[in-house]
């Protein structure tokens, strides 16, 4: 008898048992109301009515819709998504860049030394900073919904939504890049009596430009992803077509458009990664 059968040994108590059970119970108690409020009920998934609806919908996913007319529509929608993201990001750069310059403190004359109207800088910078926060803390899809109500269905709403929301983000990040870079050249120009404009263009911009462009390209990639989703509230492009097909429960069309969406994202990822590698 060399080996003792496992059953004959006294079962060792799990040393971590108390803590593990305690943690699980605490988590369950904390999250219980969340499950209540979120109407957590897996039974709805197998209700005959829902099951039939989903089954019918999924059943139509194959074969994919590959008619020439439909593919032309998908192609046009994908181009529209690409165009509205690009136009939106361009407007966001045009809008966000000057705002970032305005809030940038490394251009503050007041920091160089006492001067007239030193109080004016902070007074002007604070509301612009608040505006940037407002622009970026309302999600892009909420902006899209608001613009759809204001200017109607279609890509214009998407362009404006990206322009506003991304200008808020770009403004903040551009500002951080200006501040994080080497500010000594700008300071030297200011201290030598140079104007703020030349301090910015000769002191700050040359150092910051690769990072500015790299981040903008990254945001362009995000804008494409976002613009597909914004289509669901009517802001044009592939998303709007997908929403229409879903509403008609045309699964074949939805599956074709999902594939088109994944391809579009893949292309945007690849292009953006390649461009950013060039920049660093």
């Amino acid at each position, binding site marked *: 008898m060399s080996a003792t059968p496992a059953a004959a040994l006294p079962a060792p108590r799990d040393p*971590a048992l108390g803590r593990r059970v305690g943690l699980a119970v605490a988590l369950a108690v904390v*999250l219980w*109301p*969340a*499950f*209540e*409020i*979120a*109407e*957590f*009920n897996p039974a*709805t*998934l197998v209700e005959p009515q*829902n099951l039939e*609806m*989903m089954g019918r919908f999924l059943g139509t996913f194959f074969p994919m819709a590959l008619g020439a007319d439909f593919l032309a529509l998908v192609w046009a929608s994908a*181009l*529209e998504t*690409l*165009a*509205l993201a*690009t*136009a939106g*990001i*361009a407007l966001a*750069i045009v809008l966000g860049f000057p705002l970032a310059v305005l809030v940038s403190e490394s251009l503050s004359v007041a920091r160089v030394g006492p001067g007239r109207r030193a109080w004016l800088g902070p007074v002007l910078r604070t509301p612009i900073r608040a505006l940037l926060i*407002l622009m970026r*803390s*309302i*999600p892009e*899809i*909420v902006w899209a*919904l*608001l613009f759809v*109500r*204001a*200017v109607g269905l*279609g*890509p*214009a709403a998407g*362009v404006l939504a990206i322009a506003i929301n991304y200008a808020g983000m770009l403004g903040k990040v551009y500002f951080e890049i200006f501040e994080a870079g080497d500010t000594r050249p700008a300071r030297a120009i200011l201290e030598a009596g140079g104007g703020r404009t030349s301090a910015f263009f000769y002191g700050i911009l040359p150092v910051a*430009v*690769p990072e500015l*462009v*790299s981040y*903008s*390209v990254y945001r*362009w990639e995000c804008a494409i*992803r976002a613009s597909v*989703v914004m289509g*669901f*509230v009517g802001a044009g492009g592939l998303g709007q077509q*997908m929403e229409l097909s*879903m509403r008609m*429960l045309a699964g074949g069309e939805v599956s074709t458009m*999902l594939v088109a969406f*994944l391809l579009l*994202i893949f292309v945007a990822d690849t292009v953006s990664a390649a461009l950013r590698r*060039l*920049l660093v």
Partner: protein
Amino acid sequence: MNRGAFVWTPWAVLGGLLAAAAVSFAYLGVDFVALLSGESARQMAAFAAGFYPPDATPEFLARATRGAAETLAISAVGTLLAALIGAVLALPAAGRWGAVLKPLARFGLNFLRAIPELVWAAFMVLAAGLGPFAGSLALALHTGGVLGRLFAETLENAPRAPTQALRDAGSGATAAFFYGTLPVVLPQYVSYVLYRWEYNIRMAAVLGFVGAGGLGQMLYVSLSVFKTHEASTLILWMIAIVAVVDVLSAWLRRFLGRSGA
């Protein structure tokens, strides 16, 4: 590279981006100048002015608060389910259940992750009906893909020695996992889950646009019937949630960073 040399690449990329923007504006054919001036600008200004003041009647505030609670609940339930999905799928994706299941699990995770939350939500509204449960499921599916991938990476990088020691001592595979591997990877798992939860709170606020409950669904309905005062209360709630989550997560990160976790 010589320090004084002018660097062309960023300017070339910027030029390319602006050229692409010009082509894009031409392709879209929307006259933004006309859209943002004259009569349509006046209409937009009137529309914007309609948002003031926010609806602050006690009845509506109570409903909006309930909507905010629903949004938080959707994010919590969705993230928790996602953690479970991720934890289970990470095992085959890290190659623990053999070479055949590994690529299959990876494909499954990539698929879950590639479809945006909002598209999942539109599907889940069909599968589970309108309401917050559809939103939780949508978050669970997309985030499950994200977390599964992160968990699988963590598992692959986890040291094998503790598990092997338990196995050599005759422990079963399941017990070896729970006592040899899980304690090693759990802190990393938890930090990933918290990070995605933060992200999902923002997401849960807007999933309602396709009918998946929370503040988003209320906002969509309010704007559909042009109750702009209600809409501005709801938007303020969304901003408040995002701001609070930002502050809390920054605080939590500092706190965790200090304790060395």
